[in-house]
């Protein structure tokens, strides 16, 4: 599809999946992971995408310029576990055309 971007997502078992994510459906990265069932239901996006649970934490491994972290995301990550410098909450990253080639890895479940 014209509006799709290619994204590489490494799941919690270390397997990398190359997937196409639509940019015209107001989807965020957590929802893309769920739509491709790359993490078991009930282990990701528990709060539904309100930056309130950190179950969609991921590590961004490519140099894409992503939307700046808002206060709620930063606060949630400050209480999450397995946090690294490149940690983000997937639910706060809306898929846009400039994310072509994005590479992310899902953080362990906690």
């Amino acid at each position, binding site marked *: 599809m014209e509006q799709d971007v290619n994204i590489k997502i490494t799941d919690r078992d270390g397997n990398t999946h190359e997937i196409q994510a639509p940019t015209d459906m107001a989807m965020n990265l957590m929802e893309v992971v769920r739509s491709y069932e790359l993490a078991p239901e009930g282990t990701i996006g*528990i709060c539904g995408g309100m930056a*309130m*649970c950190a179950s969609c934490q991921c590590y961004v491994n490519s140099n894409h310029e992503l939307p700046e972290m808002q206060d709620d995301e930063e*606060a949630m990550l*400050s*209480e999450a576990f397995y946090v690294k410098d490149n940690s983000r909450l997937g639910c706060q990253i809306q898929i846009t055309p400039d994310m072509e080639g994005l590479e992310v890895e899902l953080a362990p479940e*906690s």
Partner: protein
Amino acid sequence: MIKTDILIIGAGPTGLFTVFEAGLLKLKCHLIDALPQPGGQCSEIYPKKPIYDIPAYPEILAGDLTDKLMEQCKQFEPGFTLGERADTIEKQDDGSFIVTTNKGTKHQAPVVAIAGGLGSFEPRKPLIDNIGDYEENGVEYIIKDPEFYRDKRVVIAGGGDSALDWSIFLSDVASEVTLIHRRNEFRGHLDSVEKVQELKNQGKIELITPAEVIGLEGEGRIEAVTVKKGEEEFKKSCDHFVPLFGLSPKLGPIANWGLEIEKNAIKVNNSLDYQTNIPGIFAIGDVNTYPGKLKLILCGFHEATLMCQAAYQIINPGKRYVLKYTTVSGVDGFDGTRKEAPKAVVKAIE
């Protein structure tokens, strides 16, 4: 032993609406929930968030939805076992079930409706290697009785409302309260943040930020925590360490009840009545799965309504019933109240 017609596991929106639908069929309900208050995720995680897809409510706060569901089902006098997790289920010779909680409370009912959402909320435990050694020995993840901390030295970790609220509360109870958080900023109500600031200024709370507890030590029970602040590491003596990093739902013991589980959810017969593979046990709302399942509150309401009709047949075998409309029949509460539409006025025009 608590006896009821429908035992509902989970007091979230779906569980609460079940009470109303069951009440219309003159069936009594009792609810068990691991959380100390009804509402499930709506009251625990996002009470102040608006929901936009509840039919006829263009916008309603999750906390208000809970209040309204409680108000709607009040006349059917539901019983509640709150702050306890449903742990075991045993089928009796008469076909009924006995469900026992982690605190030993027993409930008996001919029908069990699991409306457990994503599961029971369990505390998220920080990744400290030996933390398990001190559970029950100075490490608590939930504060149940503040008096337990009277005249003790307490270290609390976390940056949300519960860490702030308990630090404030315990500052009057404990001999020493230390709050440790990874950042200088806290994610809580402004009032709470300001109160902690004030108590810090008064020397009633010691605040260590940005810092983290990375180790625990003590012979048999906790005596100190190791705190890492920047590059510096130091010990802080204490009698209790209370990490408050929020709650995460786990399907938990229900997973061992012999129910068919798929994708962390309970498989049900959706073409009929949301019954599980065990007759008499139903699963409704976010906890179930079937082809085309959507985890929406409004779908939970629908599932609860259909489930109650099947429960009626189990509890009253062979007894005739036909769906009635509340606009026509009104609502007769178990508390003796009656709601009904006013009769139409018939008057001649001269």
